[in-house]
C-alpha cells in the first residue's frame, strides 16, 4: 500500500470512529464514571506505594526473565503441566492446533485472551477444522459481529444493545429484542451447552507465578472458571511478560488490576490453577491435561531495548485508555492491530509490525494523563516520542516539516517572515484580534476555533524598550519568551516583566533565543532539536543571570530537561546545558519563590474563576497547586474547580494541525466544563492553552475571558 493510501485509510478510520455516536456515547459515559469509581475502589489503599511496588517488581521480573521462565517451567512441570515455549506467533498457533488434532478435540471454548487475539488463534483453529467459541460475553459478541475488540478489558464497548440484538437474532435464528438482561440470559443458555460439550478450553492468564507454577485469571463473568474446569484439555496461552515471581507480587496485581481496569474493588472471580487438576467427564472423574504455552512473539525484543523495556511493567489494566483524551474520542479500532491507546501503539510496534504502529502513535497528545494512573508507572508519552524519533530517523520526517524546522531554526528569517505575516494578515482579520476564516489550507483548523492573529509588535521589540530602564544592579532574570508569547501574546510577556520587576528583579530578553525545539521533538527530528538547544543554551547564558524564566510550560520543560537530554553526547555542551537548566523556572514557580503576593483590592478583580491545568505544567513541572495559591491570594478571586481540569484542551503542540478532527471535540468538552462552572474567567499558565481555549470561546461567542496567571497577578499589583 502506498503511504498516501495508508494515510487516507487511517484518516477515514478516524472519521468513521468520530461519526460513531454509539461508541462515543459509551466511551464518554464510561470516562465520566471511571475516575470516581477508581477513587472509591482504591479507598484506604496507599496507591502510590502500590504502584511503586508493582513497577519495581515487574521491572525486576524483566531483568530476571530467563530464570523466572525456567523456574516457572520447572514448577509447573512438577505439577503435571506441559510447558511449551513459543518463540513466535506461528509456533504458538501450530502447537495449539496440532495438540487439538492429536487429542481428537472437536469443540473448543475460549475465555478472553488478548494474546490469542494478537496471533489470530481462532482463525488458525478454524482452518484446522475445529469449532471455536468465545465465551466472554463481549468477545462472543465481537466474534458474532466478525469484528475486533475495541478495548482490552471491555471488547464490545463500541456496540449498542440494538446492534447486539441484531447479531444475537441472526445467530440464534429468532427475534431477540434489545433487552440487556434478556440477552445476557440467552447468552448464558447458549454458551452453557458449549461449555458442557467442549473437549478443550483455551484461556489466557493475567499472571503466571514462577515460584509455584501457577497461572491465574482475573474475571467477572465466570467463563474462565468454566473454561478451566469442564473440558478435558486446558491450554493456557501466556505472554512471557506475565511471569512474575511469587504470591506476594500476585496479591499486588490482584489488588491493582480490577480497581484500575473498571474501578471495581475486585472482580467476581480470581482463579488460580496450579498444575493438573481432575475433571469429570460422563460421570467419571479423571485427570485433565494442562498445556501452558509461554509466548514470546516480540516481547523479549521489547525487553532488550534500553528504553522500551519499561513497557514490560504493563499489567494490561487498560486504565491508560480509560483516561486518554484521544482514545475517548476515537475508540480502539483505529489503532491498527489489537492493542489500543498509547500503550497499544507501543505493544503493536514490538508484537506485530512497526509499520502498523506508525500512524496510530500519532494519536497521542503527549498529555501524560495515562502515566499518572498507570500501575506500572510507564512513561507512555515518552516512549511514543522515542518511537517517533526512531521512525523519523529511518524514514525522514517529510519535506514540509523539515522546511519548517529549518525556518524556525533560522531565527532571523523566521522573525522577518512573521513580521510580514503580521502586516499581511490585516485584510483577513478585518482588524479583529482573531482570524475567522483562513483562506488557505488550514481551513479545517478554523472550523471549531478561531486562530489568533500575529501581534503587530513582537515582544522582543517591547522588551528592548523596557530594558533601557535596567540598572544592572538587581537580580538578573533572562526571559525565554517562546514563539507564542513573542509573536502572538506579547502582553503575557509584559505581565511577566511587571510582576518580576515588582519583586525586585531586572528582566532581560536575550536576543539570540530561538524556538524551544519542542515541535521538532514531537516530530522526532533530533537534528533540529539539537541545533536549537545549542542556540538557546548559548543565548540564555547571556549576562550570567540568577534565573531564567519562561511563561510557557512547554518551553520551560524544553529548557529545563530537553536541552540537557539532547546534548548529553557532547560533554562541553552538556555541562553548559546543565548549568542553564538549573536556573530555569516556570513563571509561577519563580513568583512563588520570590514571595510575590498580589493583594488586589476587594471586588477589584473578577470574582469567580476556574483553572485549567496545562499538561506539561501539571505532569512535568508538578505545579498545579502553585497558581491556585497565587491566584486565590488575590482579594476577590474565588476558585470554582471545573470537571476534569487536568484533561488536555486538545492543543498539544502540532496536534491540532495533524488531527483537527479529534482536537476539536476535545476542545468542546473543555469549553463545556468551563461553562458549567458559571465563572466568567478561566486562568491558565500556558500560552498554547490560551490560544486553543480563546479560539474556542471566540467561536462560541462566549463572554468568558481567558488569562495567563501572570496577567492576573500583574493586574492585581497595578490595582493594589
Amino acid at each position, binding site marked *: 500500500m502506498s503511504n498516501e493510501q495508508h494515510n487516507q485509510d487511517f484518516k477515514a478510520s478516524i472519521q468513521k470512529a468520530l461519526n460513531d455516536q454509539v461508541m462515543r456515547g459509551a466511551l464518554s459515559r464510561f470516562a465520566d464514571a471511571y475516575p470516581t469509581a477508581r477513587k472509591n475502589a482504591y479507598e484506604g489503599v496507599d496507591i502510590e506505594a502500590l504502584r511503586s511496588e508493582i513497577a519495581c517488581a515487574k521491572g525486576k521480573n524483566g531483568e530476571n526473565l530467563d530464570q523466572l521462565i525456567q523456574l516457572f517451567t520447572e514448577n509447573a512441570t512438577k505439577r503435571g503441566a506441559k510447558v511449551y515455549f513459543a518463540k513466535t506467533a506461528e509456533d504458538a498457533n501450530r502447537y495449539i492446533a496440532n495438540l487439538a488434532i492429536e487429542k481428537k478435540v472437536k469443540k473448543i471454548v475460549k475465555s478472553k485472551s488478548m494474546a490469542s487475539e494478537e496471533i489470530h488463534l481462532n482463525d488458525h483453529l478454524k482452518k484446522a477444522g475445529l469449532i471455536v467459541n468465545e465465551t466472554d460475553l463481549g468477545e462472543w459478541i465481537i466474534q458474532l459481529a466478525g469484528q475486533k475488540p475495541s478495548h482490552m478489558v471491555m471488547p464490545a464497548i463500541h456496540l449498542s444493545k440494538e446492534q447486539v440484538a441484531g447479531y444475537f437474532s441472526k445467530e440464534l435464528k429468532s427475534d431477540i429484542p434489545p433487552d440487556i438482561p434478556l440477552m445476557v440470559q440467552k447468552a448464558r443458555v447458549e454458551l452453557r451447552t458449549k461449555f458442557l460439550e467442549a473437549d478443550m478450553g483455551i484461556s489466557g492468564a493475567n499472571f503466571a507465578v514462577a515460584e509455584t507454577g501457577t497461572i491465574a485469571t482475573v474475571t467477572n463473568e465466570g467463563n474462565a472458571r468454566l473454561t478451566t474446569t469442564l473440558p478435558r484439555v486446558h491450554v493456557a496461552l501466556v505472554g512471557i511478560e506475565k511471569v512474575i515471581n511469587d504470591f506476594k507480587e500476585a*496479591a499486588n496485581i490482584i489488588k491493582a488490576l480490577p480497581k484500575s481496569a473498571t474501578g471495581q474493588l475486585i472482580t467476581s472471580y480470581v482463579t488460580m490453577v*496450579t498444575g493438573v487438576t481432575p475433571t469429570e467427564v460422563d460421570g467419571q472423574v479423571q485427570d485433565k491435561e494442562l498445556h501452558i504455552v509461554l509466548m514470546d512473539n516480540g516481547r523479549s525484543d521489547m525487553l532488550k531495548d534500553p528504553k522500551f523495556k519499561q513497557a514490560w511493567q504493563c499489567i494490561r489494566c487498560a486504565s491508560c485508555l480509560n483516561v486518554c483524551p484521544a482514545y475517548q474520542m476515537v475508540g480502539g479500532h483505529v489503532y491498527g492491530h489489537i492493542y489500543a491507546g498509547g500503550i497499544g501503539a507501543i505493544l503493536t510496534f514490538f508484537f506485530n509490525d512497526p509499520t502498523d504502529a506508525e500512524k496510530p502513535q500519532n494519536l497521542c497528545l503527549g498529555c501524560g494523563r495515562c502515566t499518572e494512573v498507570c500501575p506500572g508507572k510507564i512513561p507512555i508519552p515518552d516512549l511514543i516520542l522515542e518511537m517517533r524519533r526512531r521512525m523519523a530517523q529511518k524514514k525522514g520526517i517529510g519535506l514540509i516539516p523539515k522546511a519548517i524546522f529549518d525556518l524556525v531554526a533560522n531565527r532571523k528569517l523566521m522573525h522577518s517572515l512573521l513580521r510580514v505575516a503580521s502586516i499581511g494578515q490585516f485584510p483577513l482579520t478585518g482588524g479583529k484580534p482573531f482570524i475567522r476564516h483562513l483562506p488557505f489550507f488550514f481551513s479545517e483548523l478554523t472550523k471549531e476555533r478561531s486562530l489568533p492573529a500575529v501581534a503587530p509588535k513582537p515582544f522582543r521589540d517591547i522588551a528592548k524598550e523596557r530594558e533601557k530602564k535596567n540598572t544592572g544592579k538587581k537580580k538578573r532574570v533572562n526571559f525565554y519568551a517562546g514563539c507564542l508569547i513573542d509573536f502572538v501574546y506579547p502582553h503575557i510577556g509584559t505581565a511577566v516583566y511587571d510582576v518580576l520587576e515588582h519583586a525586585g528583579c531586572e528582566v532581560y530578553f536575550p536576543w539570540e533565543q530561538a524556538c524551544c525545539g519542542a515541535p521538532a521533538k514531537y516530530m522526532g527530528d533530533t537534528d533540529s532539536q539539537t541545533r536549537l538547544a545549542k542556540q538557546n543554551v548559548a543565548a540564555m547564558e547571556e549576562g550570567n543571570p540568577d534565573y531564567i524564566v519562561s511563561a510557557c510550560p512547554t518551553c520551560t520543560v524544553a529548557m529545563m530537561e530537553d536541552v540537557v537530554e539532547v546534548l548529553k553526547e557532547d560533554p562541553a555542551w552538556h555541562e553548559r546545558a546543565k548549568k542553564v537548566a538549573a536556573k530555569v523556572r516556570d513563571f509561577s514557580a519563580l513568583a512563588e519563590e520570590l514571595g510575590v503576593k498580589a493583594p488586589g483590592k476587594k471586588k477589584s478583580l473578577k470574582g469567580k474563576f476556574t483553572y485549567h491545568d496545562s499538561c506539561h505544567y501539571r505532569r512535568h513541572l508538578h505545579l498545579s497547586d502553585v497558581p491556585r495559591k497565587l491566584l486565590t491570594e488575590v482579594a476577590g478571586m474565588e476558585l470554582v474547580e471545573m470537571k476534569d481540569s487536568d484533561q488536555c484542551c486538545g492543543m498539544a503542540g502540532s496536534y491540532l494541525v495533524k488531527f483537527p478532527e479529534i482536537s476539536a471535540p476535545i476542545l468542546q468538552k473543555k469549553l463545556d466544563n468551563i461553562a458549567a462552572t458559571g465563572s466568567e474567567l478561566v486562568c491558565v499558565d500556558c500560552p498554547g492553552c490560551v490560544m486553543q481555549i480563546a479560539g474556542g470561546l471566540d467561536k462560541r461567542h462566549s463572554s468568558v475571558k481567558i488569562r495567563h496567571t501572570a496577567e492576573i497577578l500583574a493586574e492585581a499589583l497595578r490595582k493594589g
Partner: protein
Amino acid sequence: MSSEKLFSVFKEKAGVMSAQVHRVGTWAQAGDLIADQVKELKAQRVHLFSTPQLEKTNCRATLAKTGVTISDKLDRHELDITDVGITYVPYAVAETGSIFHPETDPLGRAVTMLSPTHIAVVPFNKILPTVADALETVVKDFGAVPGYMSFISGPSRTADIERVLTIGVHGPSKLIVILVDEGV
C-alpha cells in the same frame, strides 16, 4: 485486627460486591438457615457437595423437610439443572469481601459455578485480612499450593453490553455467605 472488626469489614465489602452475608452461632443454625433460604428461593432442586464440615450443619435433614429434591447424582449435566449449589468454603477475605475456595475436586468446583444460586458456609474465625494473607495461609494449611483456588466475590457479572451491569452471566446470580461462629 479483631475478628469482629474483620467481620465488619468483610460484611461491608461483600455488600459492595453484592453478596448476601449472614452470621449464625452454630453449625445446626447454619443448616436451618440453608433450608430457609432454599425455601425462600422457591428452589426445586439443590445440590450439596459433601464435606465433613457441611454435614455438620445437618442440612440434608433440614432440606428434606422442605420437600426440595436433593440430587444424589453429581455430574455436570445434573448440576446444570439444579437451582442451588451448597458448599463449605474454608476461608473469607475481609479486604475484598471474598470467599476463598481452594478445591481440587471438579464437582466441588462445579457446584459453585453452574447453579443460579450458590450458598457457601464459612467458619467465622477464618476471615483473613487480605488476599496476600489468604495465599500465605492456604499454603501453610494445605502443605502445598492447592491445584485450583478461587477468590469468589459476589455473583457472576458482566457489563459488556453498553456498560450496563447485569448479574448472572455464566456463574451464579446470587451468592449467599453464611458465617458460623462455632469452631470447625
